[in-house]
């Protein structure tokens, strides 16, 4: 296969053909090393945008980051005139894909913008104006370009609420947005020509898609019936024209558990993490463990944060039904190892897991409340107020800890009796 040059004889960027009617008109960002603060990239990235030509008009699918707009427009102009552009599709509104949108809308005023149902408010906030036309679409909606048609797949939360995929049935090509993408810049563009990007693909999934595993699974149930595809064209990284189904299969594998399950179907898992300076929070943790372990169908585990790196716990927590944190209060705060673990949990979905906090303290004990607030912020449910004990727990207080563990375990397996309480009791 002859490699197509990214620049013409005059040094101007030019489009790369994927087929007679489909072109890549994106931009290369090879020197980028940090993306969105949270991601590193050893190979930069690409901002992929595409042009689809039908007998009755042209569609542009996604744009590029604003400071790469010149490269994008030059490539676009190499395959289409602005007055031919009938459709602009935005699979994802993040600025790295919509940076050239305002200028594109100005240059192609006849074009209608197609976005997902959930993208509407976001688009208005992005463009800072209300007076423009757009069409919100859902799965099953289509737009015709004459002898080519674009079909929309509603695939939200991959990795923003607004995300969608666009399918070109006549060529069996999926424009997937950030799904199946990665930060990897190689001017050979195609997955059968670029360097080894497997690490980047896995890393991108782990940091961008993993928190939304359930939504990935739902999206795959829309995408898998489209197989075999001739190509998956993501918004970042290599264009997947060689065995695109492999990437769909890999995503399906990644939606499973990171670790094989070791418990039976009717058991619930409760993980207790603690760290202790004088052994008091440790004694609390052990008593809570005892109380919880006495409840049937709850598998309780106890971990001292002093003895481990953070990363292995993230996989455990992803699968757990409940997590408790024991922290002393030092200088008016929970301690760093606890915060380190908590700040590592944004890559997994914690919604509606049961959470709880406990800890010994010397004089003010703010740490427990701070971690409770953090757990709620991470969207856990926290049904019991944190248990705080001043310095060394008495026998009576150790019994309170056992009861705390038992209450949490009973709540977890749903055997707590119905309760009627007055709002005044909630504090």
């Amino acid at each position, binding site marked *: 296969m002859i490699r197509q040059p990214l620049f013409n004889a005059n040094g101007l960027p030019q489009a790369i053909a994927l087929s007679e009617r489909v072109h890549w008109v994106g931009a290369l960002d090879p020197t980028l090393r940090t993306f969105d603060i949270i991601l590193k990239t050893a190979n930069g990235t690409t901002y992929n945008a595409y042009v689809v030509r039908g007998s009755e008009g042209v569609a542009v699918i996604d744009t590029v980051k604003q400071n790469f707009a010149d490269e994008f427009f030059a490539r676009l102009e190499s395959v289409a005139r602005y007055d031919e552009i009938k459709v602009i599709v935005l699979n994802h509104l993040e600025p790295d894909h919509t940076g050239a949108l305002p200028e594109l809308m100005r240059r192609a005023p006849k074009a209608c913008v197609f976005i997902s*149902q959930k993208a*509407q408010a976001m688009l208005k906030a992005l463009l800072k104006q209300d007076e423009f036309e757009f069409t919100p679409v859902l799965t099953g909606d289509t737009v015709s370009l004459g002898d080519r048609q674009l079909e929309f797949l509603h695939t939200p939360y991959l990795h923003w609420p607004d995300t969608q995929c666009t399918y070109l049935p006549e060529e069996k090509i999926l424009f997937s947005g950030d799904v199946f993408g990665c930060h990897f810049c190689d001017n050979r563009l195609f997955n059968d020509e670029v360097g080894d990007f497997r690490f980047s693909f896995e890393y991108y999934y782990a940091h961008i898609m993993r928190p939304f595993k359930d939504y990935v699974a739902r999206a795959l149930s829309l995408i898998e019936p489209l197989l075999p595809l001739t190509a998956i064209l993501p918004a970042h990284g290599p264009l997947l024209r060689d065995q695109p189904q492999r990437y769909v299969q890999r995503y399906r594998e990644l939606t499973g558990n990171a670790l094989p399950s070791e418990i039976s179907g009717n058991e619930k898992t409760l993980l207790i993490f603690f760290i202790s300076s004088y052994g008091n929070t440790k004694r609390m943790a052990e008593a809570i463990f005892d109380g919880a372990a006495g409840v049937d169908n709850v598998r309780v585990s106890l971990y001292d944060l002093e003895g481990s790196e953070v990363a292995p716990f993230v996989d455990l927590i992803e699968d757990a039904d409940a997590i408790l944190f024991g922290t002393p209060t030092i200088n008016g705060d929970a301690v760093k190892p606890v915060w380190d673990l908590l700040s590592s949990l944004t890559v997994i979905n914690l919604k509606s897991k049961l959470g709880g906090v406990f800890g010994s303290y010397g004089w003010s004990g703010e740490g427990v409340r701070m971690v409770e607030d953090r757990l709620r912020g991470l969207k856990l*449910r926290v*049904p019991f107020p944190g248990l705080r004990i001043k310095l060394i727990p008495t026998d009576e207080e150790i019994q309170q800890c056992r009861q705390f563990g038992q209450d949490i375990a009973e709540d977890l397996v749903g055997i707590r009796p*119905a309760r009627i309480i*007055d*709002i005044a009791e*909630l504090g």
Partner: protein
Amino acid sequence: MAKATITFEDINVTVTAPAGTRIIEISEKVGSGITYGCREGDCGTCIMKVTEGWNNLTEPSVLEDKVLRENMAGKHNRLACQAQILGGVIKVKPV
């Protein structure tokens, strides 16, 4: 002041509270699985299902209706950060 009872069906807890109380003020404290994002009626994270007592809640504002629509919320769904209880019996659960 009129009192209402609101039941969080996911955890089987019923709370007696005065009219005007927002559900967000109760649900987190009792540990219901209704979760919150922006807490100001914009993001749609706290969409919940009202299984009983729809008319015992304040009516959704135009803005809440818009957020529910954009998030393709189902029938009898409300934003827990916006809905206030008026009286009588209300039952809710996370979606």
